[in-house]
């Protein structure tokens, strides 16, 4: 039995085509993936991402506990700041990629992927042992929206939160929109400026409608998972289950920037990560664009000189670039560099592609110099 978000009836009324994702029945598209994609790049779009999970971590050991379960250094996080990181197992395999928000002393919020909610919760609880900490899985109580695009900040202003009062990039604020209590964070999964908004289920419909009333003059449209995937791929943001899994480490996934390399305290998978940083890795993530007309897809094989050298983890059409792009892992780590020519096996034929730098489309975050 698939789960439905509180907004299910609204999506149906908006004419959404629905799809199964991570155990949920979610909108795939409304007006069409390309139209929705361009809306987010040019004006603003809103996604129902209520399938995502929210864990709250409380207690005097909250910080030291988080330090144990992620490679990132949570101790340097300032209040109201957020950080992208991974839950790693003892071999540094990625159990999930998550965002940790520092809400208040001894109080953190973790946002996790929908399909991993139960797995993550189990793993986190398993790790508690001697820590004085309480984990509350509130995923069933909260809804979550992502308002993304260059006009997003104007819409939030129109909703009553002035530019000066809006959280800056990768920070979070507990505030109210239309008298509805929300967690408002400057985060997202599109490569555009924008917000993620978490609220209690009972307020979700109200909040969704209120933001639309205030956003319509900026061209705000509802956006489905189809465009969410093309947007995140252009920004080379990872999709768990495609680009990341438990047999892959953050070092292999090109996520070194999200590791605290000098972190003193111990964490799950630390030895494995340090070893890879010192001795190198046997597979690495690459980005590529097709130079011959064909579309690479998840799980297609990557070749070079008639040898299979890797596998595509994400691939598709980029509406912004009007090119076919993809990411994948190659096992010939030393040989493959930017501009290397590779081939993708598509329906028993090899098509040429060129290794390119990620992201494919430059991120346009506001109030921040993009260093990633």
């Amino acid at each position, binding site marked *: 039995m698939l789960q439905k978000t509180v907004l299910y009836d609204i999506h149906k009324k908006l004419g959404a085509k629905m799809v199964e994702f991570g155990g949920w029945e979610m909108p*795939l*598209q409304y007006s*069409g*993936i*390309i139209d929705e994609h361009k809306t987010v790049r040019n004006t603003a779009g809103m996604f129902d991402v209520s399938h995502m999970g929210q864990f709250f971590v409380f207690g005097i050991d909250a910080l030291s506990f988080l330090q144990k379960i992620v490679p990132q250094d949570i101790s340097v996080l300032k209040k109201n700041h957020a950080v992208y990181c991974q839950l790693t197992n003892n071999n540094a395999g990625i159990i999930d990629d998550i965002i940790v928000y520092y809400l208040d002393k001894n109080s953190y919020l973790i946002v996790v992927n929908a399909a991993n909610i139960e797995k993550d919760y189990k793993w986190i609880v398993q790790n508690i042992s001697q820590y004085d900490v309480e984990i509350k899985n509130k995923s069933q109580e909260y809804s979550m929206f992502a308002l993304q695009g260059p006009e997003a900040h104007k819409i939030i202003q129109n909703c009553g939160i002035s530019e000066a009062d809006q959280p800056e990039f990768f920070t979070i604020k507990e505030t109210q929109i239309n008298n509805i209590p929300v967690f408002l964070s400057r985060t997202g999964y599109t490569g555009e400026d924008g917000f993620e908004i978490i609220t209690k289920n009972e307020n979700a419909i109200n909040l969704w409608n209120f933001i639309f009333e205030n956003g319509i003059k900026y061209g705000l449209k509802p956006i489905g998972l*189809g465009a969410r995937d093309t947007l995140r791929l252009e920004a080379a943001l990872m999709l768990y289950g495609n680009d990341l899994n438990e047999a892959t480490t953050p070092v292999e996934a090109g996520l070194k920037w999200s590791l605290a390399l000098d972190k003193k305290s111990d964490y799950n998978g630390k030895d494995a990560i340090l070893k890879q940083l010192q001795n190198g890795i046997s597979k690495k993530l690459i980005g590529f664009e097709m130079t011959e007309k*064909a579309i690479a897809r998840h799980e297609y094989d990557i070749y070079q000189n008639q040898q299979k050298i890797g596998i595509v983890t994400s691939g598709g*059409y980029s509406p912004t670039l009007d090119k076919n792009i993809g990411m994948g892992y190659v096992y010939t780590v030393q040989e493959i560099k930017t501009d290397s020519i590779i081939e993708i096996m598509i*329906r028993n034929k090899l098509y040429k592609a060129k290794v390119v730098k990620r992201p494919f489309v430059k991120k346009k975050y506001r109030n921040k110099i993009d260093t990633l």
Partner: protein
Amino acid sequence: MMVPESILCTKSHEYLLEENGLYTIGLTDYAVEQLGDIVFVELPEVGSEYSKGEVFATVESVKAASEIYMPVGGKIVEVNEKIVETPEILNESPYEEGWLVKIESECAQEESGDLLEYSDYKEELE
């Protein structure tokens, strides 16, 4: 959108339309609507022969690749080059501009028994 009266449809959403002794094959309006934005089309070579049910083309939407099957056996005599350059024509005009191939077929009569008239096809979808 006008749906030609005499088309026959497969359960895998191809249509077959006889015109002056040749048969045009394309995708039904339902098929292109379900696929969403079509961004890539791979067509067979003129002169190649396929039997009924064989994959002869691939159509890719933003979301996924779909294989297209022959409604009846035959020989490809013409392919729609326009849709290779501009795949969105398939979404806009599946019956007029957005056809896939034209074939010669000697077995069309005997192999089209399981194809559905458009009204029956629509009914099956419900």
